[in-house]
């Protein structure tokens, strides 16, 4: 098979899967809690900086994963308590407050690390030969990691009792509280999970991107489009959204050019938002 086609197909898969990885945290906070967290991109960026700190301390790259989870747990608890919980009933104000938070986080990181671009060594160098096309190994790893992570999360989502409690809370908060589910703690934990997933994504993609305080802005808007186009709160929606937004961008970039792709993605997002404002596969 023509290596160009193989390579572009792999690019397509990478585009969709890497977007899914970054959006995962937002799927949890927006899809389940209904929190429009405009600081989601900054949580991803913080994860990338944890990877930077890990490298500067001389530790192996993979050590950044547990570190970022620890860091995000603390961050998630603090942000949820101070900013999110008081504003659950005022969604637009919450949106604004998270935008303010994103500015603050950017500036704090800039003050601490400077505004420059930081390069990380790719943990696994080289390329793999796939059907005649040579593709960077680390990107293949990113895809594999994301698929594994998704499989774990799906298993948890469809099997565990904690997931059932979350679904109950999301479906009918008052009833959930009435049957003794601690909705406050559950909401907080859900938000923390979303934060951790965001930070984790940041660690994993840090070696293939330019680590700087504006990293988050790159992802946040597309992330919102993915969730809204795909539909809030459903797994199928997450796949559909990533497939459409990420896949369309990749496909049109491969066939035509980046400008057309960018325009098309915006137009499709507008189109979907207009015709199917609840998204394709919303949780009903």
């Amino acid at each position, binding site marked *: 098979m023509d*290596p*160009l086609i193989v*390579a*572009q197909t792999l*690019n397509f898969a*990478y*585009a969709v899967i*890497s977007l899914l990885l970054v959006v995962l945290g937002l799927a949890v906070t927006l899809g389940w809690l209904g929190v429009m967290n405009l600081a989601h991109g900054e949580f991803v960026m913080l994860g990338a900086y944890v990877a930077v700190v890990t490298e500067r301390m001389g530790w192996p790259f993979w050590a950044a994963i547990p570190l970022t989870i620890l860091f995000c747990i603390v961050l998630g608890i603090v942000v949820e308590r101070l900013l999110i919980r008081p504003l659950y009933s005022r969604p637009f104000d919450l949106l604004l407050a998270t935008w303010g938070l994103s500015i603050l986080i950017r500036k704090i990181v*800039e003050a601490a690390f*400077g*505004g*420059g*671009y*930081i*390069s*990380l*060594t*790719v943990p696994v*160098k080289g*390329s793999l030969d796939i059907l005649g096309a*040579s*593709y*960077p190994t*680390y*990107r293949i790893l990113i895809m594999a990691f994301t698929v594994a992570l998704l499989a774990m999360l799906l298993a948890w989502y469809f099997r565990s009792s904690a997931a059932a409690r979350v679904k109950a809370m999301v479906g009918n908060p008052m009833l959930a509280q009435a049957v003794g589910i601690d909705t406050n703690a559950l909401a907080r934990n859900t938000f923390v999970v979303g934060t951790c997933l965001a930070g984790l994504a940041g660690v994993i993609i840090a070696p*293939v*991107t*330019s*680590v*700087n305080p*504006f*990293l988050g802005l*790159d*992802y946040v808007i*597309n992330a919102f489009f993915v969730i809204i186009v795909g539909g809030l709160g459903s797994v199928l929606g997450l796949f559909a959204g990533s497939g459409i937004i990420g896949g369309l*961008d*990749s496909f049109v*970039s*491969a066939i035509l*050019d*980046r*400008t057309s*792709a*960018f325009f098309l993605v915006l137009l499709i997002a507008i189109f979907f938002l207009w015709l199917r404002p609840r998204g394709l596969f919303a949780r009903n």
Partner: protein
Amino acid sequence: MTKRTKSLNLSRRQFVLASGGAAAALASPAFIRDLKAADEFKIAAFIALTGPASLFGPTQKACAELAVEQINAAGGINGREVKLIIADGGVAPGEAAKTAVRLMLRDKVDFFAGSHDSAVRQALVATFKGKTPYVYTPIYEGGECAPNTYVVADTPAQQIGTAIPWLYKKHGLKDCYLVGNDYVWPRVLNEHTKKAVAAAGGSIVGEEYVPLGAPNKFEEIVTRIKAKNPSFVMVTVIGAYNVVFNQTFASFGLDENITRLSALLEENTLLGIGKDNAKGLYGCMSYFESVASPDSEAFKKAYLAKMGDKAPQLSLIGTDIYAGINFAAEVTKKAGSTDAAAVAKAAVDLPFKSAVGTWVMRSNRHVDKTMYMGDASSGKLEVVETFKDVASGETCK
């Protein structure tokens, strides 16, 4: 704002007395103090304090301050002490214009210098209306001919006109692929590139633009380049796009056989790209930290003495404003005032100090300068070729 040491105080007074300045200088100390304050020569420098280029802010500020300190140590401008005012050029053009008006009206700034993007430059030029002289310093697409506006910045003719023929000859290059962000500067650079490539006997096999704001990933473009297999890629993406493009390029293995020239490759961007991804990567600018000349060593020494251990990374964006402020000082000294006609006359063929040596302002209000070819493959930009006195190629009257 500049800080002055006690010793400067003394030397300034001595200088004023010795040069027999205004008769009033011989009067009582109090009068001298008033005269000094009222008589400060104010230079306002617009630099990137916020916004996407804010990573350059610290070095721009340091270079600007260094220039002013050195000018004051040498006696100021026409006996007047120079005061530096820092303004934010990283804001929206309308906001920058507001700041400029405040500086003109309230602070009565004598000379403006700016290291920022072209949109802000246009807003400032529209605000100044030629009333106050203004020197524009970073790298740009050419074409600024407004009255009382002087350009120290690298032009496409200077970058491309030198780099392409040299690279083509050195590496025996043939076909060329163009990748840039979608706005005026990359497009102008590409026009120059097409001419230079044709003159060198090569051809263009691809031309792509990435909109500003589009997602920062290049897998599809890099794969297309790989399929076309050119010998040379002209890279005119900027900032974070420049970093990610070059990283992706190398991770797909294209750095083995393909030479790259990046138009905005300075030290900070190279830090982001990383040594592993810089094989066959070149930059061509009028300043690199590694330039080895007596002037550049002296500059570096002074810079490190001033900033110490935590000195912000030196780069063209930063040293440009050093040169610009020095130009402002020299031209005002020669003209005797900041009157537009006097400055215009004094500016022709005027030499002034830059961070790498002497530059000369020409009658087209641009500078012919020495350009340096930087090889990035070691992880630092090492100068591998020097091109002396390259014309700016601008046709301002």
